[in-house]
C-alpha cells in the first residue's frame, strides 16, 4: 500500500453541498442515452422509433468496432431519436414501461468469478453491452477490447465539488463491487489499483492494491492517481472505470443482467435540500430536480461544475455522470467591484492567504469574473496542478500545434479534468482545460 499526500490543489467551497443520506427519487418516466457524448466512435443504430426494447439490450454499436454495443438503461419503447447537425445521433429517448423486462445472460457464483480468465470476463462484459463503461488513458476514450490494459485504476473517492460520496453510495452494494473488482482484475497482467482517502468500509476489498491518497481536489481524479502511482508512458494503456460502474459490472456477473441503479447527487447553490438520490442510469433530469429548484435564472449541469456539460431540466444525465449541479446564471454587475480586495466572493489566489471569510460556502454563479487576457504567469495554474507537468510550456506547445514538443512535455499523461482547476483559478481566464483537450485531439489524430 502506498500512502500519498497531495499538497497542490484546491477544494472549491461552493454552496449546496449534498447531505450524506440517500433518498429514493421519483421514478423517471423517460430515460436516455446520448451517443454524441462518446469520443472517437461512429454510432450505428440497432433500433428505430417505436421499437420496444429490453433493459440491457443493445441500442447502437460502434461502426469502427462492431463488437462494442451500448445497453439500453431501461425497458420500454423508443420514444424518439434526435439528430444533431450532419446527422449526428444526439439522443435516444426511451419511454419506460416500468415492467423492467431484462436481457438475461450467463451468471456466475461469487467465488467462481475470480477464476474466470480474461477471455470469459471480456466477452461477458461485451455481451452484456456494458463495455463502454470502461475508458482508457491516455485520451480518456472507450478502449479497444483486443488490447488488454497494463493496469486498471479505480478511484474510490470523488473530490470534485458536490460529487457523490462513494463510501455512502457503495456501502449497500459491497458484494457487487467486490464481484466487479474480481472480474475486472483478471483483465490485466499488471495490478488493479483502488484508491481511497483513508480507512473506510471500502478498505477491505480483495484482488486489488489499495492506496491511500489524501489531499484537495484533484486528488480523487484517476489521472492524478495514475500519475503518482503508475505513470503513463508511450505504449502503456491503463483502463479506468467509475466505482459505481464497477458495481454494475459486478451485478452483471452475479445476476446475468444489467442493474441500472445509480446514486446521483443533486446539488448546487440554488438547489433546495441538496442530497444523494437513488436513481438510475440515463435518468431524466426533471425527475431528479423536480420541485427542488429555488427561484431565479439557473444553469443545469450534468456532471460537476468543473467538468460537466450544460443541460436543462428537460435533459438527461450523461452516461459517465453521477452529479446534477445547478448554479445561478447572473447578470448582475457589481459597481467598482475590482477595487474591493474583500468582497464576499472566495477568490483562489487570495483564499489561501487572507480574506478567507472563514469556511463559509459561497454561491458561485456562471460569471467569468473578468475579461480574457494574455497569460500573466503568477503560478495560478501550478498551484492547483499536482503533477510533474509544466503547464505553461505545455500550453504554449499546444497553441503552437507542436505535437512533438507536446509529447515531450508529457501530454499523454494529461486529461482535461485534471486541468479544470487551472481554468477555474486562471486570472487571465484562459480555458486551459479545453486547450489540453485540443492538444490531446491533435496527438490522437497524429496516431
Amino acid at each position: 500500500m502506498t500512502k500519498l499526500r497531495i499538497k497542490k490543489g484546491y477544494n472549491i467551497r461552493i454552496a449546496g453541498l449534498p447531505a450524506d443520506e440517500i433518498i429514493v427519487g421519483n421514478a423517471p418516466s423517460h430515460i436516455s442515452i446520448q451517443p454524441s457524448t462518446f469520443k472517437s466512435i461512429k454510432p450505428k443504430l440497432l433500433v428505430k422509433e417505436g421499437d420496444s426494447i429490453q433493459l440491457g439490450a443493445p441500442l447502437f454499436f460502434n461502426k469502427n468496432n462492431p463488437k462494442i454495443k451500448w445497453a439500453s438503461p431501461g425497458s420500454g419503447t423508443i420514444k424518439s431519436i434526435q439528430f444533431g447537425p450532419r446527422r449526428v445521433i444526439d439522443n435516444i429517448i426511451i419511454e419506460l414501461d416500468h415492467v423492467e423486462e431484462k436481457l438475461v445472460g450467463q451468471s456466475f457464483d461469487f467465488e467462481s468469478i475470480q477464476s474466470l480468465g480474461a477471455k470469459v470476463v471480456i466477452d461477458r462484459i461485451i455481451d452484456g453491452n456494458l463495455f463502454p463503461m470502461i475508458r482508457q488513458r491516455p485520451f480518456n476514450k472507450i478502449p479497444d477490447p483486443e488490447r488488454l490494459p497494463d493496469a486498471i485504476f479505480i478511484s474510490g473517492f470523488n473530490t470534485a465539488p458536490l460529487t457523490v460520496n462513494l463510501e455512502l453510495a457503495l456501502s449497500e452494494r459491497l458484494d457487487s463491487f467486490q464481484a466487479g473488482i474480481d472480474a475486472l482484475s483478471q483483465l490485466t497482467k499488471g495490478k488493479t489499483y483502488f484508491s481511497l482517502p483513508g480507512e473506510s468500509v471500502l478498505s477491505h476489498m480483495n484482488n486489488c492494491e489499495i492506496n491511500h491518497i489524501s489531499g484537495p481536489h484533484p486528488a480523487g481524479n484517476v489521472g492524478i492517481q495514475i500519475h503518482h502511482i503508475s505513470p503513463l508512458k508511450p505504449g502503456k494503456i491503463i483502463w479506468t472505470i467509475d466505482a459505481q460502474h464497477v458495481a454494475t459490472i459486478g451485478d452483471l456477473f452475479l445476476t446475468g443482467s444489467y442493474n441500472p441503479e445509480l446514486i446521483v447527487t443533486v446539488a448546487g447553490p440554488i438547489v433546495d435540500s441538496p442530497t444523494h438520490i437513488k436513481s438510475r442510469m440515463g435518468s431524466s433530469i426533471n425527475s431528479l430536480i423536480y420541485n427542488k429548484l429555488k427561484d431565479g435564472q439557473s444553469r443545469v449541469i450534468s456532471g460537476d461544475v468543473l467538468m460537466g456539460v450544460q443541460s436543462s431540466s428537460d435533459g438527461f444525465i450523461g452516461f459517465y455522470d453521477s452529479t446534477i449541479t445547478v448554479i445561478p446564471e447572473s447578470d448582475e454587475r457589481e459597481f467598482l467591484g475590482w477595487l474591493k480586495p474583500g468582497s464576499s466572493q472566495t477568490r483562489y489566489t487570495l483564499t489561501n492567504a487572507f480574506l478567507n471569510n472563514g469556511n463559509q460556502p459561497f454561491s458561485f454563479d456562471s460569471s467569468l469574473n473578468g475579461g480574457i487576457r494574455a497569460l500573466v504567469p503568477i503560478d495560478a495554474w501550478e498551484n492547483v496542478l499536482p503533477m510533474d507537468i509544466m503547464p505553461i510550456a505545455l500550453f504554449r506547445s499546444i497553441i503552437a500545434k507542436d505535437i512533438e514538443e507536446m509529447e515531450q512535455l508529457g501530454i499523454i499523461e494529461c486529461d482535461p479534468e485534471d486541468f479544470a482547476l487551472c481554468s477555474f483559478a486562471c486570472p487571465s481566464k484562459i480555458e486551459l482545460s479545453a486547450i489540453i483537450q485540443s492538444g490531446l485531439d491533435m496527438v490522437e489524430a497524429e496516431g
Partner: protein
Amino acid sequence: MKALRNLMDKMAPVFEEGGALEKLYPLWEAVDVGIYNTNKKTGQAPHIRDSVDIKRVMILVVFALLPLYMFGAINIGVQSSIAQNITRTWNENFLVGFNLIIPIFLVTFITGGFWEVLFASVRKHDVNEGFFVTGFLIPLIVPASIPLWQVAIATSFGVVIGKEIFGGTGYNIFNPALTARAFIFFAYPGAISGDKVWVSGVDGYSGATGLSIPAAVEGGNAKQLLDSFSQFDFSWWNMFIGWIPGSIGETSKILILLSAGFLIFTKVASWRIMIGGVLGLVATAWLTNGLASYSDNTMLSLPAEYHLVMGGFLFGIVFMATDPVSASQTNKGRWIYGILIGVMTIIIRSINPAYPEGTMLAILFLNAFSPLIDYYVIKGNIKKRMARYAK
C-alpha cells in the same frame, strides 16, 4: 447607481459594431468594465470561475505601492527642507512632495493611457490593465526634480518599445517601467545616472549619492567613508528607514520590505525571485569584500548589508524583477534569475567604473536572458521524462 448603469446601457450601442464611434469600442469597454464588473459568462466547463482577474492582480500591486507614494511625498519635502535649511511640519513636507508627484503621475498616465488606447483600438482588443501598474511604477523610479517632458518621452518609449511592439501586456520581453527608466538613463545621463543627488526646490544644489561616495575614492574603506559623510546621514539605519535623497519611491527600505511581504502573502509576486536576488547580492558582496584588500577599488569593501539598503536594489528586486511576464516563468528558473540579478547588481556597482548603480541594468539584462533560463529548465524536465519513458 442604477441611474448610471441605465445611462451607460443607453450609450453602449454608439460604441458597438455599426455605431457612430465603433472605433473607440476598446476605450468604451475599458470604461464600462472599469465602473461595473464584467457580465461575461462561462461558455464551457468549468462553469464557475474564481473571482481573481488581471484587474484584481494589478490593483493588489498598486495597493502595495501606495505606502511608498506617501513616504516619497513626505521625503521629498524633508530633503528639500534640509537643503534649504528650513523647518516645516509633516503636513507641509507632504504637500511639497504631493505637488511635485501629482504632475509626474498625471503626465505618466495621460501619455501611457493614450498609447494603450491607441494600440487597443488599432488591434481591436480590450484595453489591458497592465499599464495600470506600469503607470504607478514610473513616477516612483524617477527623481521628483525630473522635467515633465522627459517623463512623457520616457513613458512613451517604455510603453511602445518596451511592450506594445511585442504585442502588449503578456508578450513583453522587458519590464516597461524599467525600459522607460533606462531610456532616460541613457538619453539624459547628466540628469539621472545616479552619481548626483536629486533634491527639488533648490537651484544648483548638488551632492553625492550614497553609492557614488565610495565609487569616487580610491583605496578607502567604504563603510567609514559613508559614516563620516556629513552632508547627508548615510548611516545604515537612516538608509533603511529611508530619509535620504533618491528617486521618489525607492528610498524607504523598510516600507519596501513590508510591501514585499504583502505581495508574497497575496501570491502576486514570486518570493523565489526576491529571496534569490537577496542571496545573490549578499554572496557576491561577501566575495568582493574578500577581494577588497587586493585592490584599491573602494566599492569592493562595501559590506553586503549596505548594498542591500543603498540605491534601488530592494525596490527593483521586489517590484521590477518580479514582473511575472518578463521574469523567468518556471520555479527553478526564478531562483536562477533572481540570484543572477543580485550577482549582476554587485558586479556593475563594484567593478564597472561608469555607473554607481547597477540594479536597473541587471534586471534588464536578466529580462533578456529569462527565456533562455526557462528553455534549459524545460529541457531538464523533458530529459527527466524521456529517461522514464525509455525505461
